[in-house]
């Protein structure tokens, strides 16, 4: 807690790449592959090959948790269950559904009449039945946050999107500003909170304008611009900026629930029309894409189809000199084969050529320690990991690291330091057991 000044740094956003064209709705792919995995838990398929499914029908669920469910995102015939590439970097089972383009809706999808009379429990049940997970990237089931015993004062809608390149939240909000405010209101009621705060980056004036126009009808919704730094979208940072409180492990300790803005928009549909989580926004961007765009697409869509919609890769792109990144460029994962399917946690696919040069050794400049948002000393954690010194790793609080990747980002010698810290955390957890 000494000489702690840095709270992240400004990163060149490169968001204008994707901001040029508005959100594109791509709702009718020919085939979807619904992954049978949620947060690395395997789901049991509820349909057989040859079944006809409707939009919104439950196709898979987790054995013990009733809430981990997945719905069909198109109507049509189940063709097979086969392995596809998932954003976690592994191959997972997926239900292949061939779209019949009839868009038959499941019986459960209908307009809800008594929206304003729903109780807190009912609102949380809707969240559970919709299979709603955090669309920010962690994929944490939303209803668990609302089942807390703590008194919640504030619900924060996180529209900060601090990672570079990604604009899916931004464009999703601009498309459905009113749905965001309605979803935020329902979330406030589901948490029994007094107010709901929408946090966004201060330079996104368009969001501010759109939401201010509607602010008369939603007086309980407050807007809170945050600084343009990375990691401003980090839960702890937002809670501190908005409420001034800090907490240890869960925001509920400070009387706060944080939800992504895309989650709020999907939730508005779930409350009003009982539409479960079947589609999500995704940014296809990067220097390797001809015409970067943001899509609103059904879960299970092949990303390669979306890339075709963007005009494909730029000419002369050497795949071995480019990264295919699932997720943001700071925390995402490199995928080797461009055969990914869209799942609920995937907010962006970035194709980015990279350069290589002769990397020098770590020179000990200390920039990694200066930028660390949780005040760790990455170089020391790396050394302790190389010596396999579990005790020292504990002293250095390696497990506080939230893997934002800033230490590797600023390193002038291109040292893979956040990877070493990640390995240090693994070693610490293994050693602590």
């Amino acid at each position: 807690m000494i000489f702690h000044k840095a709270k992240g740094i400004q990163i060149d956003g490169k968001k204008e790449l994707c901001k040029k064209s508005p959100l594109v709705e791509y709702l009718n792919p020919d085939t979807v592959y619904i992954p049978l995995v949620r947060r690395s838990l395997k789901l049991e398929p509820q349909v057989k090959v040859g079944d006809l499914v409707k939009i919104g029908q439950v196709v898979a669920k987790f054995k013990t948790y009733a809430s981990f469910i997945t719905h069909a995102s198109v109507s049509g015939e189940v063709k097979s269950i086969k392995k596809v590439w998932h954003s976690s970097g592994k191959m997972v089972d997926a239900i292949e559904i061939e779209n019949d383009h009839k868009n038959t809706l499941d019986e459960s999808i209908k307009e809800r009449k008594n929206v304003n009379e729903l109780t807190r429990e009912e609102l949380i049940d809707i969240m559970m039945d919709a299979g709603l997970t955090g669309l920010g990237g962690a994929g944490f089931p939303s209803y668990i946050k609302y089942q807390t015993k703590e008194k919640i004062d504030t619900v924060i809608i996180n529209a900060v999107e601090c990672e570079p390149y990604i604009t899916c939240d931004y464009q999703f909000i601009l498309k459905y500003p009113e749905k965001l405010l309605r979803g935020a209101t329902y979330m406030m009621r589901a948490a029994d909170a007094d107010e709901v705060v929408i946090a966004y980056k201060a330079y996104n004036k368009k969001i501010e304008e759109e939401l201010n126009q509607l602010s008369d009808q939603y007086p309980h919704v407050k807007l809170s611009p945050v600084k343009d730094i990375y990691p401003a979208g980090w839960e702890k940072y937002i809670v501190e900026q908005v409420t001034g409180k800090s907490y240890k492990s869960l925001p509920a300790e400070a009387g706060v629930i944080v939800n992504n803005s895309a989650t709020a928009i999907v939730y508005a549909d779930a409350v009003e029309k009982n539409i479960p989580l079947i589609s999500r926004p995704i940014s296809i961007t990067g220097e390797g894409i001809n015409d970067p765009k943001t899509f609103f697409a059904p879960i299970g869509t092949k990303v390669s189809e979306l890339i075709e919609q963007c005009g494909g890769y730029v000419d002369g792109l050497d795949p071995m000199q480019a990264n295919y990144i699932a997720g943001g460029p700071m925390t995402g994962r490199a995928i080797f084969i461009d055969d990914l399917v869209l799942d609920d946690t995937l907010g962006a696919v970035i194709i980015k050529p990279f350069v290589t040069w002769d990397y020098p050794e770590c020179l000990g400049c200390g920039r990694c320690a200066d930028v660390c948002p949780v005040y760790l000393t990455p170089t020391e954690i790396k050394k302790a990991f190389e010596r396999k010194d579990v005790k020292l790793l504990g002293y250095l609080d390696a497990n506080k690291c939230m893997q934002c990747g800033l230490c590797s980002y600023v390193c002038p010698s291109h040292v893979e330091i956040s990877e070493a810290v990640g390995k240090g955390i693994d070693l610490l957890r293994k050693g602590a057991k």
Partner: protein
Amino acid sequence: MARFAGGKAPFLRLSDEKGKNTNTIMRDFMIALLPVVLFSWYKNGIQVYIDGNINFFEMLYPLFLILMGGFLSVVMEGIFFYITDKKNRNLNDILRKLSTSYAAIPGVILALLLPVYTPIWVLMFATFIATIVGKMLFGGFGHNIFNPALLGYAIVGFTLSGFITDAGGVLNGSEILVDTYAGATPLGIFAQFRNTGEAFSFAALVEPYGNLWDFFIGTIPGALGETSALAILIGGVWLVARKIIKWYTPVIYVGTVFVISWIIGMIAGDAGLWFPTYSILSGGVMFAAVFMITEPVTTPTNSLGKIVFALFLGVLTVLFRFVGNLPEGVGTSLILMNIFAIPIDTYSGIIRTKGFKKPGLSFISVLAGIFLIIAAYTIIASVNMYTAFLPIINIWQVI
């Protein structure tokens, strides 16, 4: 379907952009050394030539010596790479390794630490110690424990200083003709005073060399690079502006030397600010403050560690200067502190995250205790305080 390259998050790296990586940092260090190099050439070469005391080729000698230091260490590292790596012996491989080894910087700094009339073979020996023993044998750039230039300088200072004195030593062609210099640097004079136990005064210490302004500009006798505080400050401001070094490391170091020297001066009976100012402007204090204690590899990494390091180094410098036998305290204290950079790094890392609690607390309290004891001892020993304390002790009947 195409197969893409792998990689680790984050996929954005500042270092991939031009001008934001280690090569730039090292280039900026070289640029920061430029005013020092130019001033020392002016003072020891051009000015003396204008005075008519040396010929044209002797005028070029200081510059030649400095460049030779950089050149020799690059060549030596190249030879080292050639000998140690049997597989990659062609020129391109060696050049590639040299480009991430930054050999020239310790060489140039080493030359700047040496007197103007250092024979080339002594410089060669010093560069060998610096780059091969001090750097490459520890594992190359980034792995060395001691500042390579300093190690070379110290070994030469302990073993071959006689040859340098025979070859002409520290005074340049003009200075040798000035009677008042008495063949010594300001710190040399100071050491004579210290060893004989005479009281020092402004007239004895500063006046032979002009006034304190001359000390600041750097027209006093001394090693090639260390005399001019002005040129060093220009380099330091450049480094701070480029965010290569932290401003507080040099400031704390120089400040510590200043304050302790002031206290010593006060106890010795002269509270004038001239004495601490003289203390920081003579010898290598300024040079070390900007170019050596900020050298990233051999000093602590994080900000807290840097502050502790600078404080400690300041105390040790004064200790070695006022109590020890050698005239210069900077080099010895810095070599000693280079070793302590490793534990300071570890414990300041713990304190950064855990605060002043166990287990960092015990380390920091031991360090603070040693710090205070050394500081007190330095002050007492340097002014023979025990004689001043004796009457008091007698009154208390301790003895």
